[in-house]
């Protein structure tokens, strides 16, 4: 029971980071039907940004988080502008291959500039461990979980309540009709990349706090897992991505807890396959209904 509670807390905090990352995949997919393979690398850039502003500029946690979000939002918008926009009307596979190329560029570029060595992420917050009902809960876990949930709620409000959020949804379901009411596709797509990348930037800083270690290839595996999370939730669905992220995190820590650490990734992918066999569109995925 205690182990269970402990793993639940570990799983939720890790899962909240996957959820933040999965949101970016799902939003970008929703609007331009592109799996942005470079998304995990934007998260890596967020972590490196955090590393430098904490060490160099002595930013506190909030400033680090906000500046990483802004930095990554700008990077995301630039990637879309230079790499994906010119291919807007090309076959989807072209953009997909470009996304893989962008991912390699970021990973190798960062390795070249900063070396492949892992660095320890500076401790911007002192760790305090609470002992509650026999569970060990650190303030870092709570901050990760709280920050991630707060960001997800804010994102949901932006998407559901603001005019730009509604425009995003309009473009996602019907780009032609969106243009006919005067919505600018390019602005809306840039906005979507900015939002998704800001979430990835926040996730990068949070993972730095969680694992204390960052390196230029750190985005690969979590990127794929977050993508899996987005697919489990139903790609294109925002609540689905959050749920998928938490599920993935819980699954991973659960598998580790029962002593199968070596297989944790395999189990995540296995569950993905099972879910997709039962629910091909994911948990919250839409049955493709086209009304003409």
């Amino acid at each position: 029971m205690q182990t269970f509670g402990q793993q639940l807390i570990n799983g939720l905090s890790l899962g909240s980071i996957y959820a933040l990352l999965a949101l970016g995949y799902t939003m970008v997919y929703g609007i331009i039907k592109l799996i942005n393979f470079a998304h995990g690398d934007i998260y890596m850039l967020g972590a490196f940004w955090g590393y430098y502003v904490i060490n160099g500029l002595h930013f506190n946690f909030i400033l680090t988080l906000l500046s990483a979000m802004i930095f990554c939002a700008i990077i995301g918008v630039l990637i879309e502008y230079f790499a994906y926009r010119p291919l807007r009307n090309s076959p989807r596979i072209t953009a997909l291959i470009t996304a893989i190329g962008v991912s390699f560029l970021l990973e190798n570029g960062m390795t070249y500039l900063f070396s492949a060595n892992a660095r320890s992420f500076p401790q911007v917050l002192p760790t305090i461990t609470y002992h509650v009902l026999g569970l060990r809960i650190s303030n870092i876990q709570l901050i990760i979980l709280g920050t991630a949930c707060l960001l997800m709620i804010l994102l949901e409000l932006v998407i559901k309540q603001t005019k730009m959020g509604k425009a995003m949804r309009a473009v996602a379901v019907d780009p032609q009709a969106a243009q006919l009411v005067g919505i600018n596709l390019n602005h809306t797509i840039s906005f979507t990349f900015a939002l998704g990348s800001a979430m990835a930037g926040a996730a990068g800083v949070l993972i730095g706090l969680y694992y204390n270690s960052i390196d230029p290839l750190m985005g690969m595996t979590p990127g794929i897992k977050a993508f899996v999370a987005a697919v489990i939730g139903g790609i294109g669905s925002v609540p689905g991505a959050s749920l998928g992220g938490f599920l993935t995190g819980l699954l991973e820590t659960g598998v580790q807890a029962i002593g199968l650490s070596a297989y944790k990734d395999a189990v995540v992918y296995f569950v993905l396959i099972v879910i997709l066999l039962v629910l091909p569109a994911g948990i919250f995925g839409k049955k493709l209904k086209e009304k003409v």
Partner: protein
Amino acid sequence: MLDIKDLVVNYGAIQAIKGVSLSIHTGEIVTLIGANGAGKSTILQTISGLIRPVSGEITYLQHPLQRDAAPKIVRAGISQVPEGRHIFPGLSVQENLQMGAFIRKDRQNLAQSYAEVYQYFPVLKQRRYQDAATLSGGEQQMLAMGRALMSHPRLMLLDEPSMGLAPIFINEIFDIIRAINAAGTTVLLIEQNANKALAIADRGYVLAAGQIKLQGTGQELLDNQAVQQAYLGG
């Protein structure tokens, strides 16, 4: 108000519009009728800036339009009700209307625009918090028209608004088109339902295979033998 001159539009190697000229004067209802595939929707998409013409000119209030992007054309006062409605599923009725007003800067007048739309279409007010995808076909058509009205257009382009609707809905839609026009909006109406369209139109054009074959007042076209045979069921 709108003058189209020698418009040519291609889809790849296929020439869909082969030199069409037509004009719409302020305050009119002009109808464009023609068989399936004649090129009616293509003309509307070109006016709205979704398709670039190969050649020809579109002049709106003395300004060339054929190079402008869709949002700029909506801001200039041309709004389209697309064929097949194309409302935004997943957004509520009211959010769909809000998107119709996307380009509006005069926020203080928005409440009045909603009120106007709800007056034309009371059912939309009852359903305003409902997902637009749950509306019936006729209600979706009304929403598409309401959404187009929300931009406060001077020229409204309607693409087959009666398609797939029951006769009672069709009559209502045509009454409302007339009312919208009477309230000061110029209308370009595309219809399969040529009888009804010509009956409310000041003037009409008959399009066949990408070319204008006939033009005249609504009454002239209604009385025309060739039109009767081809489009009015003899």
